[in-house]
């Protein structure tokens, strides 16, 4: 009978070994120094394949965004491979190892470890702050460069980490941009919209922005009448909308994900609430390609202060077309950022001419990329790893398309402000 227990333990052990064998490549002990797999290099390295990792939610409620972002990275990789691979490494082909974070920090840590063991020289991800904080920490411990494409909390780049970089602007920049552009809009279009109610999803994402907005509104001449948090998967917003109706603000601002953003707008319309402007702050709904294209009976003239692609650039058109042809989906701003992150990483690998993670890290830090599709100036990182020129712009949905309406170099057309 003791044999049965022994059998059970042996079975368990065997299962574990089987799990090892099934997954990825050979495992090896890694410590915070470099992987022994990397060869010594001085510009004349010859490898066949170089691997980079993608960590995004491929399952769960954020899966569709996560998959779009992963696909964008794959597109960037395909472009490089079709053009002869990484030339400084003798034409090495780039391979993507894509991992599912399941939007779970623990899983994120495990996947970083797995990808590192599989030999990736850099990782891009993860879409949410919680996973970003955990995953970059693990990457820092191991010594793998991690480029955060989307992940908003300021704290991500405030921990003194060397291996963490970020493309999107930090969360505090969104309300700052909101408070900069609304007075500008007021001036340009000759109106005085002052009162704001902010409806936001209640995780760290929305709460952080709500706080910054509230603290700085007065200085910008605006007044936040009320702040209304809601769970991102809420089925009903009538309570919040009733409060908006009761207080009648000029502007309704919203930081949401896709589902709740849509629900908010539907409920506002249903309740006959007509603010003079609806302006999102990093709203996952108002900048979502599907929402923009399909919900035309409810989304007309909705604005969103969010990062965007540069509409006045030919490169952007090219990339959008390629993405659409390959994946049958529109290229959204999150995926555009992932694409850019991949471009940065691939460019760094090319400049480093090495598979050494530290050399690649240095190359990333020295990035000066002007040939990119985002609505910002050159991509340059400061000592904290933040893309300093990253900025949100003001987008507006008009007739089923999103246009950049402010600021100048990226402006596509005039805004409709206030709402007619």
């Amino acid at each position: 009978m003791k044999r049965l227990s022994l059998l059970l333990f042996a079975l368990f052990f065997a299962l574990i070994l089987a799990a090892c064998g099934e997954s990825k490549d050979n495992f090896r002990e890694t410590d915070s120094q470099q992987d022994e797999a990397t060869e010594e290099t001085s510009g004349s390295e010859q490898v066949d394949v170089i691997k980079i990792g993608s960590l995004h939610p491929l399952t769960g409620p954020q899966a569709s965004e996560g998959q779009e972002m992963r696909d964008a990275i794959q597109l960037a990789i395909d472009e490089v491979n079709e053009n002869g691979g990484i030339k400084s490494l003798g034409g090495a082909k780039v391979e993507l190892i894509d991992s599912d974070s399941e939007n779970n920090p623990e899983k994120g840590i495990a996947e970083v470890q797995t990808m590192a063991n599989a030999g990736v020289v850099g990782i891009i991800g993860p879409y949410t702050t919680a996973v970003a904080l955990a995953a970059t920490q693990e990457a820092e411990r191991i010594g793998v460069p991690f480029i955060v494409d989307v992940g908003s909390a300021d704290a991500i780049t405030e921990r003194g980490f060397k291996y963490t970089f970020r493309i999107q602007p930090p969360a505090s920049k969104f309300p700052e941009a909101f408070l900069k552009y609304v007075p500008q809009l007021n001036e340009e279009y000759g109106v005085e919209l002052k009162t704001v109610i902010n409806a936001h999803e209640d995780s760290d994402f929305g709460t952080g922005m709500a706080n910054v907005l509230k603290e700085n509104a007065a200085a910008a001449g605006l007044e936040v009448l009320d702040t209304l948090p809601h769970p991102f998967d809420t089925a009903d917003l009538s309570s919040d909308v009733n409060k908006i109706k009761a207080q009648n603000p000029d502007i309704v601002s919203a930081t949401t994900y896709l589902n709740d953003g849509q629900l908010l707008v539907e409920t506002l319309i249903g309740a006959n609430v007509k603010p003079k402007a609806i302006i999102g702050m990093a709203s996952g709904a108002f900048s979502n390609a599907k929402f923009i294209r399909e919900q035309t009976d409810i989304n007309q003239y909705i604005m969103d202060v969010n990062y965007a692609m540069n509409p006045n650039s030919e490169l952007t058109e090219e990339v959008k077309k390629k993405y659409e042809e390959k994946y049958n989906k529109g290229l959204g701003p999150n995926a555009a950022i992932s694409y850019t992150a991949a471009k940065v990483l691939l460019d760094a690998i090319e400049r480093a001419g090495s598979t050494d993670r530290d050399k690649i890290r240095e190359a990333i830090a020295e990035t000066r990329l002007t040939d990119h599709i985002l609505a910002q100036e050159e991509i340059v990182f400061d000592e904290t790893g933040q893309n300093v020129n990253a900025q949100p712009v003001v987008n507006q949905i008009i007739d089923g398309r999103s246009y950049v309406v402010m600021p100048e170099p990226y402006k596509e057309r005039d805004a409709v402000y206030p709402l007619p």
Partner: protein
Amino acid sequence: MKKKWVLIGLLLVFLFTFPLYSTNYLLHIGIITLMFAFASQAWNIISGYSGQFSFGHAAFFGVGAYTSTVLLVEYNVNPWIGMFIGAIIAAAIAFVLGFLTFRYKLKGAYFSLTTLAFAEILRVFVKNTDFFRKTMGIMIPLDINPFWYQFQTRVGYYYTILILTIIITVIVYLISRSRLGFNLIAIRENEDAAQSLGVRTFKNKMIAITLSGGLTAFAGTFYAQYLLFVKPETVFASDISVSILMPAIVGGVGTVAGPIVGSFIVTPLGELTSQMFSNLAGTNLIAYGVIIIIIILFMPEGVVGRYHDWVNRRKKGNKETQEQKESVTS
């Protein structure tokens, strides 16, 4: 009898030397497995031995995680000390919960649902409170120093949770052999009968839930120090309550080895399924659902429970054949 101790000895050797032949990834699995084994063992005290099934142990886990973290980040209290303070607070909260439910005679499903609601209340409360940074959570600054409960590599965390798990298993073993343990089992089997036989049911259940809640908090602190980040959605979520009760259910509620064996089955299995079906979401959760149903239908006493039954039947069988032999020969 000796064979059991040899087996345990072998297991301990395996567990202690595990870092030598595992990879970093496996070590992470081992850590999470042991952590939930620990928490499940704590859960076992009130739910396994006393039969009062809690669906809300995330409440105590979360309290442990938040207490030590807030004390560290705001008041610079050493997390090892914060861990004990967290346990005390969790025990106090468990005491309140126990008082409300046992005093008013909530049993069975009513008790379970109350614990569920209780955990949710704590989660929503923390989520809405500025002092706890609401949903933004609290980050623990990276400061690698074992004295301050942070380790350079996973190995340090592994041994910490291994030792904690061994300690709590010993505690539960001692409880199972003690008067308290017998009382709890009696209460579980038939509370009214136990009461009429003189068992102070209220007092014993209160001790059990207080102990259970307080001990669970240690796992919460460990989790916080391992991830260096706490937020309501991770430490107070019902997912945590499920992960805490699953090992004991599968391994065998009310047994000493149950939560340990159960966690070693359930946690790696979860990993295995999510790896095998990496392009299909949620398949590991389907597997969990199937396991729960199979266990409850065919092995409600759990793996270890079934093993005990098997042993007892064999013993009885041997005894009977022995008696038969004697009656024939004599």
